[in-house]
């Protein structure tokens, strides 16, 4: 890790910087997807990269998600390190066959001969009044695909280092970026090339009363709830899982054992969401320490509502997290 001077950047700028550095560092790295070239991406994450690195390295593809994933797989088989962008994570569905049948299986089905160092970046999540389908959080679908990794950063500084690590990784990595954080989060980001290890959860706030567990766009929601609780004299721990697959179960369980109470927060639909996996792991590994049932704060069992006036009822808020916290504290 090369930590140099830091500047305040938002997540779009931090990810752009990471891609720029990766393209400059390794000629096998390619950046492609829909509108990523001339336009610089609908969120401007790839802005300026085509002009700087050329049309061969940063290019637009036809509008076909399965084709994009298939292309990435073939390029990786041929020795390249593709970084594909899917415009919104909710548009990944046409590519699920490529992901489930191939991307995550190639190393296994070739018995280690062919690994696929593919990174798929996709914005996900709500809170910014996007149209239908644009706010989906399909991380549980991806986490259920054997052979892929799933990484969800929660700040610009983490995003840059984790993305560079994902590009260096020898296995396929889904890198989901919370749309809410793109311009809504700003932080000091070190200059230059640095990586942060995948597969580690981190405690972002200490506290002994209960443990809040989440990732991506939910980290700031949990921190906000923790602030409010602190004002009432209740110090809670906040854990950012950061990598869902492979999951850092040790850090997770340790954090729960310390407080004996856990609230899991995720903005996908509740049933079968990744929070359900977290709750199950806690039940398997820390039941003796629990003083209250694990409570999930999640989206409702319905499609993410495209109705902007009521969207905020679906997406977990600090208020809802506090209500759940009250439940585990008073059990």
């Amino acid at each position: 890790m090369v930590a140099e001077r830091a500047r305040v950047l938002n997540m779009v700028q931090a990810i752009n910087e990471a891609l720029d550095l990766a393209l400059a560092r390794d000629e096998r790295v390619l950046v492609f997807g829909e509108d990523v070239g001339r336009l610089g991406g609908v969120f401007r994450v790839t802005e300026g990269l085509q002009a700087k690195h050329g049309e061969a390295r940063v290019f637009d593809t036809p509008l076909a998600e399965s084709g994009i994933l298939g292309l990435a797989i073939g390029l990786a088989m041929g020795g390249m390190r593709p970084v594909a962008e899917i415009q919104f994570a909710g548009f990944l569905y046409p590519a699920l066959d490529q992901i489930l049948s191939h991307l995550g299986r190639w190393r296994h089905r070739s018995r280690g001969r062919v690994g696929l160092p593919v990174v798929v970046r996709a914005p996900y999540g709500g809170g910014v009044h996007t149209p239908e389908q644009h706010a989906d959080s399909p991380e549980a679908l991806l986490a259920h695909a054997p052979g892929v990794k799933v990484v969800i950063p929660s700040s610009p500084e983490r995003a840059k280092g984790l993305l560079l690590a994902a590009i260096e990784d020898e296995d396929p990595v889904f890198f989901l970026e919370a749309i809410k954080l793109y311009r809504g989060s700003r932080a000091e980001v070190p200059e230059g090339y640095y990586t942060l290890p995948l597969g580690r959860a981190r405690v972002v706030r200490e506290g002994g009363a209960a443990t809040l567990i989440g990732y991506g766009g939910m980290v700031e929601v949990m921190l906000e709830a923790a602030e409010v609780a602190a004002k009432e004299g209740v110090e809670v721990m906040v854990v950012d899982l950061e990598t869902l697959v492979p999951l850092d179960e040790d850090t997770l369980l340790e954090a729960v054992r310390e407080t004996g109470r856990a609230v899991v927060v995720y903005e996908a639909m509740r049933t079968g969401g990744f929070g359900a996996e977290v709750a199950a792991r806690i039940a398997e590994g820390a039941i003796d320490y629990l003083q209250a049932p694990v409570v999930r704060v999640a989206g409702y069992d319905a499609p993410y509502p495209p109705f902007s006036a009521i969207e905020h009822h679906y997406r977990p808020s600090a208020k809802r997290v506090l209500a759940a916290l009250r439940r585990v504290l008073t059990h």
Partner: protein
Amino acid sequence: MKPKVVQYLDKGEFPLGEGEALALYRAMRRARFFDEKAVTLQRQGRLGVYAPFMGQEAAQVGVALALGEKDFVVPSYRESALLLARGLPIHTLLLYWRAHPAGWRFPEGVRAVNPYIPIATQIPQAVGLALAGRYRGEDWVVATSIGDGGTSEGDFHEGLNFAAVFNAPVLFLVQNNGYAISVPRAKQMRVDYIARRAEGYGMPGVVVDGNDAVAVYLEAKKAVERARKGEGPTLLEALTYRLAPHTTSDDPSRYRTREEEETWRAKDPLLRFRRALEARGLWDEEREGELLAQLEEEFARELALADSVPEPRPEEIVEHVYAEMGPDQRRAWEALRQGRHVEEVW
């Protein structure tokens, strides 16, 4: 206008040199030999479910031999002939169809990727592999193959469009064998020739008599040359027929007639090519006998090699999921290695 179906043998034309003609025949004969042995082994319970290709040797071998050493094949599951002709050892292929992990790791240097079960998903991947060659300054061409049924899948269309847009060096072989398991071509699409679709993507489409080894081989060579010169992809439709069932678990008598099968049996690509060779004094009963003896010996040797591979270890289940095992695989691996269930050690 009906596309012209390219063929040579029925017209009595034979524009091949002796060396390449004999190489083509030997590879086809070897493939047929394998196919027959594989079906027998399956019946004996010494192979898992197997997808025979009998009747499609000309289409697969013709394309395989049109490729250069550095070129790749990205096959579907019925393409054992393509794999054999590209140099995959028989014992590896046997282990593959035995569903033994050792058969899933193709030897280094064999420019073939593992066959695919999901339909058409290999098509956009072949395009990516072809482009990777261009990035790396290699002029490798990728030949990928699919059946007529597979062309109904979205990935077929996305892949062809990508190939045309990126001018990728790919040969798309469609083995039009008339059926998607039981569904005939006419119930699969309303277009008479699949090669017609090529124009819609902006690439040449060629129809060949897929049971005419000369036609497939020469048209595939043209497509490979075009691709290598940077002129982009070609869709090659080979009209053929699978004389055998879809897989060893299938019963084709439920969906096609004996008469139809007999009509196609008369067009057996192996016999047609052999007759053409014999007519030119390039082949005879004696040479055939010698070749069969060689093949018998080779197969026995390869089968013994496959049989000598030990049973897979239970812990192989969680090996090679990632370059480095994650904590969940590690724990399962330890349990399986100790002959225990993961729940006992979790």
